[in-house]
């Protein structure tokens, strides 16, 4: 047992592993909490799109030597507003607007990236590098997590009613699109930090999979958020071990761990998993 414990503890003697773990937990919390709304409101596609459209913002910031965070955030905000603007008049369906913005801006990001010399930078942005989190990054990640938690607690009523019954929200004078923009802003902040862990391409996994897994296991929204955060944090831990011992990509390991959890929950969720339903038949 002593050796197992040392296997588990040993990696965290290193500062980069400690920071990676802290980042994984904090990112997991913000992603799972917002992810609950992403799943319940059917916003998975828009979340994925925002992650991709952030790319040109990051590259422009990198080329100009300013903080990647601000570059990403500005790109995310432009995306959120752009999607709203394109689809507002009903001329273009929202998912179409998202698809157009998403691929166009992602292509712009790739084009800009191809002017960069180092491929290493590209792969970190695309696939994440949770072991490369600096103290300054960690501070930003913690700040975003705090903002998300405060917003979700303070605006709980408003998020709940606009997600569950937008018609009722309108009839009491609460604008669902206002709440939606606020949610998109929070998503932008969260995605920017989550890119550190799993990269642009896989961010949607952190937003959707923990919340979707939790949704299979509980019928209460707060529990869905707490369970989702636990799953995401656990997956980060698994990803860290995998990359430490097996020398595999941490971001991909995190996403695969989350996917495995989802499949397990889908099969074995008490009362409504696939196995359960098959036995009832």
């Amino acid at each position: 047992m002593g050796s197992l414990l040392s296997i588990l503890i040993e990696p965290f003697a290193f500062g980069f592993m400690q920071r990676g773990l802290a980042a994984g937990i904090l990112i997991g919390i913000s992603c799972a909490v917002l992810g609950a709304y992403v799943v319940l409101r059917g916003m998975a596609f828009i979340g994925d799109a925002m992650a991709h459209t952030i790319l040109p913002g990051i590259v422009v910031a990198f080329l100009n030597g300013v903080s990647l965070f601000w570059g990403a955030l500005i790109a995310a905000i432009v995306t959120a507003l752009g999607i709203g603007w394109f689809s507002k008049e009903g001329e273009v369906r929202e998912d179409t607007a998202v698809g157009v913005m998403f691929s166009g801006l992602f292509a712009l990001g790739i084009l800009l990236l191809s002017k960069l010399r180092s491929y290493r930078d590209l792969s970190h942005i695309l696939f994440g590098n949770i072991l490369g989190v600096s103290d300054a990054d960690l501070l930003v990640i913690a700040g975003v997590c705090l903002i998300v938690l405060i917003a979700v607690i303070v605006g709980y009523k408003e998020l709940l009613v606009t997600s569950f019954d937008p018609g009722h929200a309108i009839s009491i004078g609460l604008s669902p699109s206002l709440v939606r923009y606020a949610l998109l802003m929070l998503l932008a902040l969260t995605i920017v930090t989550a890119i550190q862990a799993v990269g642009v391409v896989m961010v949607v996994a952190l937003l959707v999979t923990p919340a979707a897994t939790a949704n299979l296991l509980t019928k209460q929204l707060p529990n869905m958020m707490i369970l989702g955060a636990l799953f995401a944090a656990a997956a980060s831990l698994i990803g860290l071990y995998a990359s430490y011992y097996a020398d595999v990509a941490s971001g991909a390991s995190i996403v695969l761990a989350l996917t495995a959890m989802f499949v397990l929950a889908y099969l074995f969720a008490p009362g409504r998993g696939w196995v359960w339903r098959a036995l009832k038949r």
Partner: protein
Amino acid sequence: MDLNYGKTCDIPAIAGEPAVAIDHLNFTYPDAANPALHDISLTVEKGEKVALVGPNGAGKSTLIKLIAGLEPAPPGKIRVYGNPVGDCHHKVAYVPQRGDVDWRFPVSVRQVVMMGRYVHIGWFNRAGLEDRAAVQRALDMMELTDLADRQIGELSGGQQQRVMLARSLAHEADLLLMDEPLNNLDVRTQESIFDVMDHLADAGRTLIVSTHDLGVLPMHFTRAIFLDKEIVADGPPKEVLTARTLLRAYGVHIHDHEGIWDNGIAAQHPH
């Protein structure tokens, strides 16, 4: 600190104004070729129990949504208690069709009923004692107290409809707009919903209810409005439901209009 979601209409309703007044309203959905509603004019006085009837696609839901402010009405065409739509959120409750609600959503019965209080609570505030008491009264009245902590998807159809009604009770609105609240319900549940509607009307509330169950009209409504994109007939239910309107609505020929209640016409129309 009070931060209301929208206008509250705390100014007393303009004296002598009806609950709802609609003046030559036309409405076409964006991108639709034909108008959904054509030249609608009507007045609903306080305390009336009005049934909106008509065939599928007649614009019943659209009219209710326009009065509730869910669809943008042309300015000045609809007045609620003498004010423009959207100025009276505290006084107007909208009860959606059961099919329009996501019943898998992870909320409990009590949480949904509490949403009826949000209009009184406002931005970011928490529910107070008064709100909790109002929710409990609504739950008791709809006989949902034992189910209050269940997730809404675990309820039967009739219980779910009672949840939406309980939410509008908690709202304590003066005008209730209900979209097909009687749809696919067993007779017993329908009766309990009629009891609540009667109780609300006795308390001076105004009800506008869309339904395609014609058999219930004469007993439970003071007035029926037959809608088929325009107002075909408007008056006491027995006068509205003539052979002519029924033919128009459902394409069935009724020669003996006295006999329609016995023949169970409500069961014959296609749905």
